[in-house]
């Protein structure tokens, strides 16, 4: 992983202890007084005190409607709201006006798919014609997608007559990028793919997919939900057209996420949700719309959550994403050692290179739910099920996996406790 000239990136024991002290929930006990071992950050992260305080402070000191009202509170609320946009934009290597607030990554993906639909039926005028889809046009996905980056595209295809194609994944769970030339064709209009799988943890090589998409003039859409909280992400450098990520996985509040879009694309894209706050002139029969990002932010926004998310981005920024990634790389190495436990099989890359500290696995002879239950009794929180990725599980011929996923506050001790708990599972169920 990344190193500097003088010190290896990562978190020292002192720094890690300080980080953990910032997360009040990590101090609680579960299941009869056991210390919590939280290994479900891939589903949702815990929140540092500063994020919680920021939301309370917003309501106690600054709460007002943003972008309207001439009073001092409205000014302060608007400033906090837009400062958060700038902070989040900086954090992901975007410009502030390229960040659209949404209720989450799912909403961000649906926003784009419905905007393309609207363009297809002629909304957005001449500028939006570039987004129109015709029957037989192709939308390219991957077999590793979360349902949130799959089902909205299925629906778009059904509405427009477009056809779905997809990259397969190899036996290690890595996307078959080598298939790019055959999967992405002259008919491809959109390529939507995950930056990192929430199941296998595999990090997708973005550059070759973007390069191939550009060759054929296709739009690219990156699901960055799993990458933004765990890796340095520079969306301009990645050169994707759109991206989505959620706040609650990156130490921020629930109910808030963001859509990134290249400025000239957002400017040409017709709105989806319409109403107040996104218009310029309204008559009884029609309306004109504001430029992005406001064009896509109808109605009252989740202001307190947005301000909290801005602080979460700053919190990660201050730790340094190089350090976060290096720390989690070490955890990935330790998590992968569960492959030594008899009966445990990892679904995903067996090596820590180009993967996150997200490790899904099966225990031969024991269902994932039962694995999770035994771990839970020891205070260890993991995710079980299909993790909203049924096609990927089907690819591996399984219905469910258990998944341990780390975050910046995860420790070696957490992983050790998990390893020990997991080692006892087959004995509990008398499986040999």
């Amino acid at each position, binding site marked *: 992983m990344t190193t500097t000239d003088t010190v290896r990136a990562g978190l020292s024991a002192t720094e890690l202890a300080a980080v953990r002290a910032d997360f009040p929930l990590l101090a609680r006990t579960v*299941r*009869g007084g056991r210390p919590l071992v939280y290994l479900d950050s891939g589903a949702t992260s815990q929140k540092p005190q500063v994020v919680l305080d920021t939301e309370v402070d917003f309501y106690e000191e600054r709460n007002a409607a943003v972008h309207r009202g001439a009073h001092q509170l409205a000014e302060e609320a608007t400033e906090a709201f837009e400062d958060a946009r700038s902070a989040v934009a900086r954090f992901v290597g975007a410009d502030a006006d390229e960040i659209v607030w949404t209720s989450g990554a799912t909403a961000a993906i649906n926003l784009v798919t419905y905007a393309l639909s609207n363009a297809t039926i002629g909304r957005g005028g001449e500028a939006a014609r570039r987004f129109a889809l015709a029957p037989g046009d192709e939308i390219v996905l991957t077999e590793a997608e979360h349902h949130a980056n799959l089902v909205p595209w299925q629906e778009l295809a059904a509405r427009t007559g477009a056809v779905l194609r997809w990259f397969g994944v190899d036996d290690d769970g890595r996307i078959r990028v080598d298939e790019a030339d055959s999967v992405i064709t002259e008919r491809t209009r959109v390529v939507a793919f995950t930056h990192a799988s929430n199941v296998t943890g595999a990090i997708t090589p973005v550059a070759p997919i973007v390069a191939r998409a550009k060759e054929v003039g296709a739009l690219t859409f990156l699901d960055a939900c799993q990458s933004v909280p765990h890796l340095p992400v520079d969306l301009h450098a990645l050169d994707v057209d759109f991206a989505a990520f959620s706040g609650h996985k990156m130490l921020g509040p629930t109910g808030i996420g963001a859509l990134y879009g290249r400025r000239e694309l957002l400017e040409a894209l017709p709105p989806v949700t319409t109403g107040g706050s996104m218009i310029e002139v309204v008559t009884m029969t029609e309306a004109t719309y504001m430029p992005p990002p406001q064009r896509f932010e109808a109605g009252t926004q989740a202001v307190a959550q947005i301000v909290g998310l801005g602080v979460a981005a700053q919190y990660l920024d201050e730790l340094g994403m190089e350090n976060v990634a290096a720390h989690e790389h070490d955890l990935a190495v330790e998590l992968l050692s569960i492959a030594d436990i008899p009966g445990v099989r990892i679904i995903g890359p067996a090596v820590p290179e180009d993967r996150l500290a997200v490790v899904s696995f099966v225990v031969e002879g*024991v*269902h*994932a*739910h*039962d694995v999770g*239950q*035994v771990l839970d*009794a*020891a205070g260890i929180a993991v995710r*079980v*099920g*299909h993790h909203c990725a*049924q096609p990927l*599980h089907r690819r591996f011929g399984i*219905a*469910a996996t258990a998944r341990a996923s780390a975050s910046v506050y995860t420790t070696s001790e957490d992983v050790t406790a998990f390893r020990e708990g997991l080692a006892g599972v087959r004995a*509990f*169920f*008398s499986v040999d």
Partner: protein
Amino acid sequence: MSSSLEQMYQQVILDHAKSPHGRGFVDLSEGHLHGESHQINPTCGDEVTMRVEFDTADPKVPTISSVSWEGQGCSISQASLSVLTDLVTGAPVAESEHLGDLFRQLMQSRGKGLDEDLEDELGDATAFTGVAQFPARIKCALLGWAALRDTLATSGVLVGPSATTADQSSADTPLPAQSPQAPQENR
């Protein structure tokens, strides 16, 4: 291991999960009323397809002559299917509905269980009392019972002689899965 974990994974549950009864479809007898239901637990992908055959020789008291199923899932769902198979095979349909109601009550008991006489009726199924302490697992235990209820509702067996006004076969007019008892006004 914590005591609540052991309360949940009673030996009888582990035994049923290891060699479940009723797994593997049996061939249906010619001319016998039967029903089939496919149920999934969308949160974990567990699924079951249940096939139930009825004996309607006495039209006033139809009974369940066989239960068989195919599926995959956690030990709780598999053991529950197995126990269900034992409990309702050979039982009058009305009795199987009653047992289903009792089992659903048990799952809502938050682990406290039911009155002793009711638990006696449930037999091995009372072993699932501990499951009711874990809200996320109640659906696992109910998967098979949901399949049974759906099977009864859609097979037509509930449209018995007391409902002779329903002259259509229920295959054409499936009853809503959520209220299979609705047509049984006389219960």
